[in-house]
C-alpha cells in the first residue's frame, strides 16, 4: 500500500488542482487494475464498512506503545485526528512489508467477522508491517473515516487522461450503485453495456454563488429566476416502471421518501427530474429542521410522515421519454418538465418550482429580499438557453443568496482545532448579553483569515481564565460579527435559539465587549 500512501500524501499536501491531477495520473499509471478500482471507489466515497470499533484501536495502540490512557488523550487533542494519533503512538516498525491496497481491503473485510481476540492480533500484526504514514492511511480505512481532499471532478479528469474516455461519460459511469468487488477495470470502463444500470443518475449541475452584482449578468430577460429552496437536492428517476431517488451525495434515498412511490405510476418511463426535496405542509415549505428530523432516521415512522411530509420541487429534467435531453436549452427542457408535472397531477408530492418574474434586476432584488418568507435562501439565476452541465461550472447558473442575518457577539470559550489546525485555538463559543450576564448561543469556527486566527490564538493563550481539557475559557473581550442563514427556537440550547450555518463575518476590533448585542436582539430575529 506504499504507492497508495504516497498518492494520499501527495493529494493531502497540495491545494493546487493541477498537482492533484498529476499525482492521480501518475498513480493510475503505476497501480494494478484492482488497486485502481479500489482507489476510484475510495475517492468516490465508497468506503469499506468499519470493521473495528475505534475504542479498541486506541486501546491496542496505547497498550503496545506503553502509553497511559490520559497521555493518549492529551496526544489526541494535539494531533486532532484519531487515526493519526494511533499511527504515531505505535512504536516504530523494524521492518515494513509492502502489500497492495486490495490486499488490505480484503483483509479488513475478513476482519469484520473475526472475534475480538483475533481482531486485535490481526490489526497489531498489520501495524507492525507499516511505516507511520501508511499506518495512518490504513487506520483511516479501518475506521471508515477515509476522506481525501480531491473532488470527484478532479478524479474524473485524471481518469479521463489515463483512459482516454471523455469526462462526461466517465462521470456517468461512476454514478450509481456499482460495487468495486465485482468490477473488472477493463470491462467497466471500456465496454459499452447496453444494460446500463437502470438506476443510474446523471451528475448534478451545480451552481456557484454569485460574487458580483446581478446587474453584471446583462439583460435580465435572458435569465430565469426561481427560489433557491432550502432542502435536499434530489434526482427522481422513473425507468422500466421503477422509481429511484438520488440525493446530491450520490446516495440512493428512495426508501427514505415513501411519498414519492406514487410517481412511478404518474410519470412515464424514461423520466429523470432534478429538484429539491422539501418538507412541505399546507401549501408552504417548512424549515430545513423539519427535513433534518427525517434524514438521520433508518425507518420513517407514520408520525414523521405526518409531521414533515415531503414534496419534490421540480426545476429541471435531464431525460424525457428515455432520451438524454441535457443539451436542449433550459426553456425547452422546462416546457417538457411543466407538461409532465401537469399531466402527473399529484401536487401533494410533485410541484414545479415557480418562475419568479421581474421586469428588471431591481425587481428581482426586491423578490430576493422576501426569500425568508418562503423559507428559501435567495434566488437561483439560470441562463434561459443554458444546457444541463456536469458538476460545478461557472457562467450559466448562479446562486443569488439573501444577505445573512448578523449579530455582534463576545467570544467566551475557545477550543483547539482539529486536523490541519490542531496547534491552534480555532473553534470559538460566542455569547450575547442578558442584562449583565453573557449567555452563550453559538459556536463558530470559520470565516477568519489565517492571520486573524493566529491573532485570536495568541489572545486565547494569553487571556485564559480556565482550562477544561481542550477548551479554555477566555476573558470576554473580543467581539465578532456572527453571520447566519437562519434562526430557530430550540429547547436544547441554553439561549433558547439555534442558528443555521453560523460563521464569523467580521472581527469587530472597533467594539468593546459592552457594545455587543443582547439576547433580546437575537430573539427579535426569530421568525414571527
Amino acid at each position: 500500500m506504499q504507492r497508495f500512501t504516497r498518492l494520499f500524501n501527495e493529494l493531502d499536501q497540495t491545494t493546487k488542482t493541477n498537482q492533484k491531477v498529476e499525482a492521480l495520473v501518475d498513480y493510475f499509471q503505476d497501480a494494478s487494475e484492482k488497486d485502481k478500482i479500489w482507489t476510484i471507489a475510495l475517492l468516490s466515497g465508497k468506503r469499506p464498512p468499519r470493521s473495528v470499533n475505534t475504542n479498541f484501536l486506541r486501546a491496542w495502540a496505547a497498550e503496545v506503545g506503553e502509553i497511559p490512557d490520559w497521555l493518549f488523550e492529551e496526544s489526541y487533542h494535539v494531533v486532532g485526528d484519531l487515526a493519526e494519533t494511533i499511527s504515531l503512538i505505535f512504536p516504530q516498525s523494524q521492518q515494513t512489508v509492502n502489500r497492495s491496497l486490495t490486499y488490505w481491503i480484503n483483509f479488513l473485510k475478513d476482519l469484520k467477522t473475526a472475534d475480538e481476540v483475533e481482531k486485535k492480533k490481526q490489526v497489531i500484526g498489520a501495524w507492525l508491517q507499516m511505516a507511520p504514514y501508511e499506518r495512518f492511511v490504513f487506520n483511516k480505512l479501518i475506521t471508515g473515516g477515509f476522506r481525501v481532499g480531491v473532488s470527484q471532478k478532479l478524479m474524473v479528469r485524471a481518469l479521463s487522461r489515463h483512459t482516454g474516455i471523455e469526462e462526461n461519460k466517465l462521470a456517468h459511469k461512476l454514478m450509481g450503485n456499482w460495487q468495486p468487488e465485482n468490477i473488472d477495470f477493463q470491462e467497466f470502463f471500456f465496454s459499452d453495456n447496453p444494460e446500463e444500470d437502470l438506476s443510474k443518475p446523471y451528475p448534478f449541475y451545480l451552481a456557484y454563488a454569485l460574487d458580483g452584482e446581478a446587474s453584471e449578468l446583462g439583460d435580465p430577460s435572458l435569465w430565469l429566476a426561481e427560489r433557491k429552496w432550502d432542502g435536499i437536492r434530489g434526482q427522481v428517476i422513473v425507468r422500466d416502471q421503477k422509481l429511484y431517488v438520488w440525493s446530491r451525495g450520490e446516495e440512493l434515498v428512495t426508501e427514505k421518501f415513501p411519498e414519492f412511490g406514487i410517481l412511478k405510476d404518474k410519470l412515464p418511463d424514461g423520466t429523470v427530474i432534478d429538484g429539491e426535496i422539501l418538507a412541505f405542509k399546507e401549501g408552504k415549505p417548512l424549515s430545513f429542521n423539519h427535513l433534518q428530523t427525517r434524514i438521520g432516521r433508518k425507518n420513517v415512522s407514520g408520525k414523521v410522515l405526518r409531521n414533515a411530509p415531503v414534496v419534490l420541487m421540480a426545476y429541471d429534467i435531464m431525460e424525457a421519454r428515455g432520451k438524454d435531453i441535457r443539451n436542449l436549452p433550459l426553456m425547452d427542457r422546462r416546457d417538457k418538465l411543466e407538461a409532465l408535472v401537469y399531466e402527473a397531477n399529484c401536487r401533494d408530492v410533485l410541484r414545479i418550482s415557480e418562475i419568479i418574474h421581474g421586469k428588471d434586476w431591481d425587481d428581482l432584488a426586491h423578490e430576493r429580499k422576501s426569500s425568508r418568507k418562503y423559507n428559501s435562501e435567495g434566488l437561483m439565476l439560470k441562463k434561459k438557453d443554458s444546457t444541463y452541465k456536469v458538476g460545478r461550472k461557472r457562467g450559466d447558473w448562479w446562486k443569488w443568496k439573501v444577505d445573512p442575518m448578523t449579530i455582534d457577539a463576545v467570544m467566551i470559550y475557545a477550543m483547539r482545532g482539529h486536523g490541519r489546525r490542531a496547534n491552534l485555538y480555532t473553534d470559538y463559543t460566542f455569547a450575547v448579553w442578558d442584562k449583565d450576564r453573557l449567555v452563550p448561543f453559538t459556536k463558530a469556527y470559520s470565516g477568519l483569515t489565517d492571520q486573524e486566527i493566529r491573532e485570536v490564538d495568541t489572545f486565547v493563550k494569553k487571556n485564559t481564565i480556565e482550562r477544561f481539557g481542550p477548551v479554555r475559557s477566555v476573558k470576554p473581550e473580543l467581539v465578532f460579527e456572527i453571520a447566519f442563514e437562519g434562526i430557530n427556537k430550540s429547547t436544547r440550547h441554553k439561549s433558547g435559539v439555534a442558528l443555521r450555518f453560523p460563521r464569523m463575518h467580521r472581527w469587530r476590533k472597533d467594539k468593546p465587549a459592552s457594545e455587543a448585542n443582547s439576547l433580546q436582539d437575537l430573539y427579535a430575529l426569530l421568525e414571527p
Partner: protein
Amino acid sequence: MPLLQFTDRGIYCKRAGIYIDPWKPVDKALITHGHADHARYGHGHYLCHHHSKPVLQLRLGTNIEIQTVTYHESINVNGVTISFHPAGHIIGSAQIRLEYKGCIWVVSGDYKIEDDGLSGAFEPVKCHYFITECTFGLPVYKWRPQKEVFDDINHWWQKNKEAGKTTVIIGYSLGKAQRIIQGLDTSIGPILTHGAVENINQALRNDGVSLNETIRVTADFNKNQLNGSIVVAPPSAAGTTWMKKFHPYSIGIASGWMGLRGARRRRSVDRGFVLSDHADWIGLNQAINESGAEYVIATHGYTNAFARWLNEKGIQAGVESTMFEGELSEINEGSGGKAVNDEVQN
C-alpha cells in the same frame, strides 16, 4: 533554599549571583545558546560557549560585555562550580551544570540527542536536579534518523531540478539553516541563501566553522543564476514578494512540527520534512534517564503532560513557566505565514 530558583527575571542562582537565560535585564547572565528566547538584550555581562559569541554579537551588537568558555571548563563563583556541556541543539549550545556542596543542577537549555555533525554530540551529565525543555514532549513526536530525512530532501531537490524548478527550503536561520546546508548533496546544484541565513553563516565562518559553499541572494540577483539551485530561507521569507525571484519553485519546510499532518497541511507548502533541533519523545526520556536526576523540572512545551508522565514512572517532576517560547514557536510554526521572529527556535 534550592541552588536555583525561578524568578520573574529568569532562572536564578542566588549563591553565585547569576541568572541563566534570563528574560529581563540582569547583571550577570549565563547563556545556553544564541536563540532569541534564550539570549536576550540588555544584560550587564554575558557568559556563553565561544561558538555562541559571534551569534550574540551579531544579534545584540558588538558592544555587549561578553566572556566565553569551552565545554567542560570549570569556573568557580562564590563556591559554585559552573561548567558548560554539549547540548547538541545548535552550534555553541550548552547544558549548564552548577554544583554547590555536592548538589548538582543541570539546566539543559534546548537539546537534541542525535549528533548533527555541527553542534557537538549531546553529552549526558549526571545530576540531582535536571531542568529540561519538552518542546516535543508527547509520544506522537518521534524523529527518523536525519540521514533518511536528508535523502528525502536531496531526492526532492533532484526531482525539482529535473522538472526545471527551483527548490526553496525553509528553516530557522540560526541552527536549522546550517544543518540543512551541511546535509545537502552539493553535486545536485548550488546552494543559495537568504540574507538572514547568510549573515549567520558569515559570522560562523569568521569564527572558524566550516560550512558548505553558499551564495547570498542579493537585490541585483539574476534569474539566470538559478539553474537547479536550492534556496535556504527563514520562515519570515515564506509568502513574501522576495520569493517571486525563484519562480517556478517548489517549497518545503524542515521542522519538527511537520510530523503532524495538520501542521503540514496548514502551512500549505509542497513538502514538509520532519527535522528538528529538539529532542523527540524518545530523546527526552533517554536524556532524563541518563542524567540520573532525582527531580526533573519541565519548561517550555507540553510541560504538564510530560511532568505527569515522569511522576507516574517514578521520577519526581514539576513544572515551571518561563518566557522561553515553546508555545510561541508553536503558534508561528503551526500556523503558517510570517513568523514573529525567525530566530525563535524549533
